[in-house]
């Protein structure tokens, strides 16, 4: 066999370091334009402003059409000042306080219970077969159907509401965790195992972080269920001497106060959207960190 090999291919004496550094620098050039903060804020805000304008416009049009009397269907010009007035009243804020406290406690309990059940079910195979479909079944059950049971069981008090919130939210949270664990990329599992990650270390360093995006999606869905359950609960379980969003809404119904009812509905909508926004921020951060939101930039 001939010995000469240096004539072709890469020169053998030179270290590859210089060429590698060159290639890396070429690869690392990023073309993502950096926008300034005001631009970013404007880009995030204008679609929402537009959506708001469309809703208000449609509302005003229906009002102007004279389809229903102004007492039954007031226009924005009546409802928005009512909202403004109530916002300067302590009653609305204390009601929001009560409701959000219930939301936080209920969702917190659902978080703990859902995560615990999810962890258990994803880990233990026989439990999986038995409980897996049950969890999904619970998820499809309308939470309002639980109230007769909850009211008889707990009485007309906060526990009944919290019970239904937990039943509404926990299955989504558990399912999110189970799905996250299930969809841990097999390649990463193989890599982790060859590295010597076993049992608890495998969970802590691989499976849990890998399932975080799916878990957060489950939390978000769980929040939506919790919020619905809470509103249903506050309309059904009226507790004496406590004002909550549900109580205010119920009072407006009793007094046929449509502007008042619509005001509270707007508050409910805004609160729900705000909390959802928090979840979206968390979700976006995780996605960026995990490299899920990025388009490939290798070339």
């Amino acid at each position, binding site marked *: 066999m001939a010995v000469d*090999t240096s004539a072709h*291919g890469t020169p053998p004496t030179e270290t*590859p370091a210089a*060429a590698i550094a060159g290639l890396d620098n070429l690869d690392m050039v990023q073309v993502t334009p950096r926008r300034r903060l005001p631009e970013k804020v404007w880009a995030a805000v204008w679609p929402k402003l537009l959506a708001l304008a469309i809703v208000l416009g449609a509302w005003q049009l229906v009002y102007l059409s004279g389809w229903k009397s102004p007492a039954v269907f007031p226009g924005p010009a009546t409802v928005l000042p009512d909202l403004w007035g109530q916002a300067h009243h302590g009653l609305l804020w204390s009601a929001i306080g009560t409701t959000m406290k219930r939301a936080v406690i209920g969702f917190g309990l659902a978080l703990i219970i859902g995560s615990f059940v999810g962890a258990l079910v994803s880990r233990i195979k026989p439990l999986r077969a038995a409980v897996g479909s049950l969890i999904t079944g619970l998820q499809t059950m309308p939470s309002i159907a639980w109230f007769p049971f909850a009211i008889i069981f707990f009485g007309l008090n906060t526990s009944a509401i919290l019970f239904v919130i937990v039943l509404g939210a926990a299955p989504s949270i558990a399912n999110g965790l189970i799905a996250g664990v299930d969809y841990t990329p097999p390649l*990463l599992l193989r*890599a982790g195992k*060859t590295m010597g990650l076993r049992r608890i270390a495998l969970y802590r360093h*691989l499976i849990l972080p890998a399932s975080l995006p799916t878990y957060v999606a489950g939390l978000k869905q769980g929040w939506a269920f919790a919020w619905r359950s809470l509103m249903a609960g506050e309309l059904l379980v009226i507790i004496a001497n406590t004002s909550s969003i549900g109580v205010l809404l119920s009072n407006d119904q009793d007094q046929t106060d449509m502007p008042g009812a619509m005001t509270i509905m707007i508050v409910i909508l805004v609160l729900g959207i705000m909390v959802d926004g928090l979840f979206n921020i968390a979700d976006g951060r995780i996605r960026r960190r995990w490299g899920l939101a990025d388009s490939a930039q290798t070339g």
Partner: protein
Amino acid sequence: MQDSTVLQNGGQPNTGPRSPGPENTGQDAAMQTTGQDAAVRITEVSKTFGRGPSTVVALDRVSLSVAPGEFVCLIGASGCGKSTLLSLVAGLDRPTSGGISTNGNRVALMFQEPALFPWLTAARNIELALRATGVSRAERRDRAAELLELVHLGGFGGKRPHELSGGMRQRVALARALGQEADVLLMDEPFGALDAMTRDLLHEVLEGLWRRRGLSVLFVTHEVREAVRLGDRVVLLSSRPGRVIGDFRVDLERPRGMDSADTVDLAIKIKAQLREEVIRHGS
């Protein structure tokens, strides 16, 4: 035309006598060697998937050994069970029959995809491997930095995998594999997804590390020239079932070029045999 050259160049059916170390097909032969023990010894390994009529024989009595410090390339057409074999050696799966011994050596496995953990930075990915290996917390940071330096990624420890190019990610994966303090490096088409220039450079990096660290490497590829470029030996596997059908010793001086005449010559010979193997499945 090809037939004579192929055989003359060492293509021996089943286990070739040219492979270093006493390589016999019997189990007892593997047991009795103690002095110059192989870094990896695969003895009569078979692997079947499924049962009954749908059984697939992925590997059929494959015997192969890698001497300490030896670079062995494994090539074959698709369906030859190359990846299965590496999984078995890495201990991710068990053979249906036969024995695999790594002689107490630590084994690290690299894939075609970098398989880095996307939520960790490059440095943290390596630190996690160090942690699993049992390196103390105090040492991990420095060791990770050293390893990154070894693969020419000194300044990139703080980047996340998705911020790096494919070649850079694969180098992080290489550093991570080295961080497992492995004596045996199993590589499953590690450069298959890279462009030619990046791949050439990584060949040099890998060759340098292999030499300096005295690693034993079992390198799977479907690119024959790559196998000739890197390997001390090129072992040819047949397809369905996977079986060793050729064992070529590569006596070319290092470092070799992928495109040098000698590399290409030998690659042509090996390719010819590989092609025959594929044609056999066409009829």
